[in-house]
């Protein structure tokens, strides 16, 4: 049905307004001259300047980035392996436990995951720092990656792998040369998902970080508990900006690819 009823139009407008107005307010007031975040006193970019001179925040950002890159890469590798096991490995001893462990972190409250990991690190005497956060983030992120990758693997055309074997590939070669390139988009989205989850994580990082390793969310949280601050608004705006650019470009790229593919198929049909 092409015509939208007024009810639907209103729902959509209200809905998206609800979703976006708070973020817009954040952005607008990050340019507020006054420190009192809720009173508009004129346009200024001074809070951005202050932000970039705030060493504590910059360090935290750097740590967060490091942790995110390391944990998402590791999580993607482990998660893809887990997805292969779930979809292809058939029956093996302890399979139920394995799938239970893969799906459990998705529904586990973060406080519990964080708590349990901290107790582990203490129990084995591991000093808390960047590495422990990486270990923690990898563990829960790999489960998300495995869900994304396994849903792609399930619809993967196995005759492509059989063709690869038939033409002389070993099983590993078939995976490397045929399967992986074709499921690459899913693997990449898995990586992005793991990256975002790591970047954004507060609770687990709080439990598993150490004195030298403060992440940006931890810093933001401790600042925000004291109240609203324009520097945080500035930081928020930057983060929203980055995500927006990312999401829009991804959207455009996939739309472009779809258009190009349609065009190619039509050209092919015409011979």
């Amino acid at each position, binding site marked *: 049905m092409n015509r939208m009823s007024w009810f639907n139009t209103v729902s959509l407008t209200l809905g998206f307004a609800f*979703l976006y107005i708070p973020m817009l307010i954040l952005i607008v007031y990050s340019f507020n001259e006054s420190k009192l975040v809720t009173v508009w006193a004129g346009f200024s970019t001074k809070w951005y300047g202050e932000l970039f001179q705030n060493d504590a925040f910059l360090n935290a950002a750097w740590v967060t980035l490091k942790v995110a890159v390391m944990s998402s890469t590791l999580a993607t590798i482990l998660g893809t*392996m887990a997805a292969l096991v779930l979809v292809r490995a058939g029956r093996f001893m302890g399979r139920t436990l394995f799938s239970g462990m893969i799906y459990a972190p998705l529904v586990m409250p973060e*406080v519990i995951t964080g708590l349990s990991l901290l107790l582990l690190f203490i129990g084995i005497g591991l000093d808390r720092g960047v590495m422990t956060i990486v270990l923690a983030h990898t563990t829960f992120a790999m489960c998300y990656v495995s869900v994304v990758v396994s849903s792609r693997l399930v619809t993967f055309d196995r005759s492509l792998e059989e063709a690869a074997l038939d033409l002389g590939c070993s099983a590993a070669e078939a995976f490397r040369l045929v399967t992986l390139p074709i499921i690459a988009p899913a693997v990449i989205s898995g990586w992005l998902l793991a990256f975002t989850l790591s970047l*954004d994580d507060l*609770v687990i990082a709080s439990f598993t970080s150490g004195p030298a390793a403060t992440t940006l969310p931890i810093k933001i*949280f401790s600042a925000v508990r004291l109240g609203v601050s324009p520097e945080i608004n500035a930081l928020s705006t930057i*983060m929203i900006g980055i*995500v927006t650019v990312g*999401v829009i470009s991804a959207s455009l790229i996939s739309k472009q690819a779809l258009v190009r593919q349609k065009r190619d198929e039509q050209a092919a049909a015409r011979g």
Partner: protein
Amino acid sequence: MRRFLLIAIPYAWLLVLFLVPFVIVLKISLSDAAIARPPYFPQFDWAEGVMAFVRELDFENFIFLTQDDLYWKAYLSSLRIATTATLLTLVAGYPIAYAMARAPEEWRPTLMMLVILPFWTSFLIRVYAWMGILSNEGYLNQILLWTGIINEPLTILNTNTAVYIGIVYTYLPFMILPVYSALDRMDGSLIEAAEDLGCSRAQAFWLVTIPLSRPGIIAGCFLVFIPVLGEFVIPSLLGGSGTLMIGKVLWEEFFSNRDWPVASAVAVVLLLILVVPIVLFQRNQQKQAEAEK
């Protein structure tokens, strides 16, 4: 050999970094607090052996949980808040998902993008945004005062109301996406058939659309309810001291009171409470998958 490694590596990782920590939580929930590093007792001493270790364990902490008002109240409060918040999110999200499903084809990718963008934006920041809006000097009060609707600022921040708003706001995409997916898959001709057989628009919606989108509704509800139950950030930033949620209680037990055994016991009980909805959710997903085959 290759197959063995493929299974063994992620398996081992999860065993060590997921399962073992749980066993430790369980063990500590059965231990006693101690002024020590780490602050619990008994510690596992290889010399004394397993039996001596086990003898020292007890359910003291669990009993404590039932005795002190705070805990069972917090559990109940969490359940109440999670249920209410889930329903609110459903009421807010369903119309949006429905409108998306009825929108012209060309708009769909853009609409999807608009729903997903908040999902990728930092959770913490989105909750923080509401602090500025709901506080006594916040934007909402400013507008209400300026338009004369109220005379005194409303206290919304640091109350349960703020928590509900925060939860609905942050979890809305989790409700919209599964409901939209179910509605999108629905065959439009079924509505036409219903109207052809005499239903009014409203009746067709109630008797056909809602039941057929049930799988999406259920999935959305679980995707909101289960995490919200253990939620910490929203009650911490938007709620007040009167907002009792178990995630907050656990955090405070751990960091402020340094009572690790009690914190562990709180965690164990929370997990037990969660088992029921998790199992139900899994069953529902399996039934869905089978129905689609």
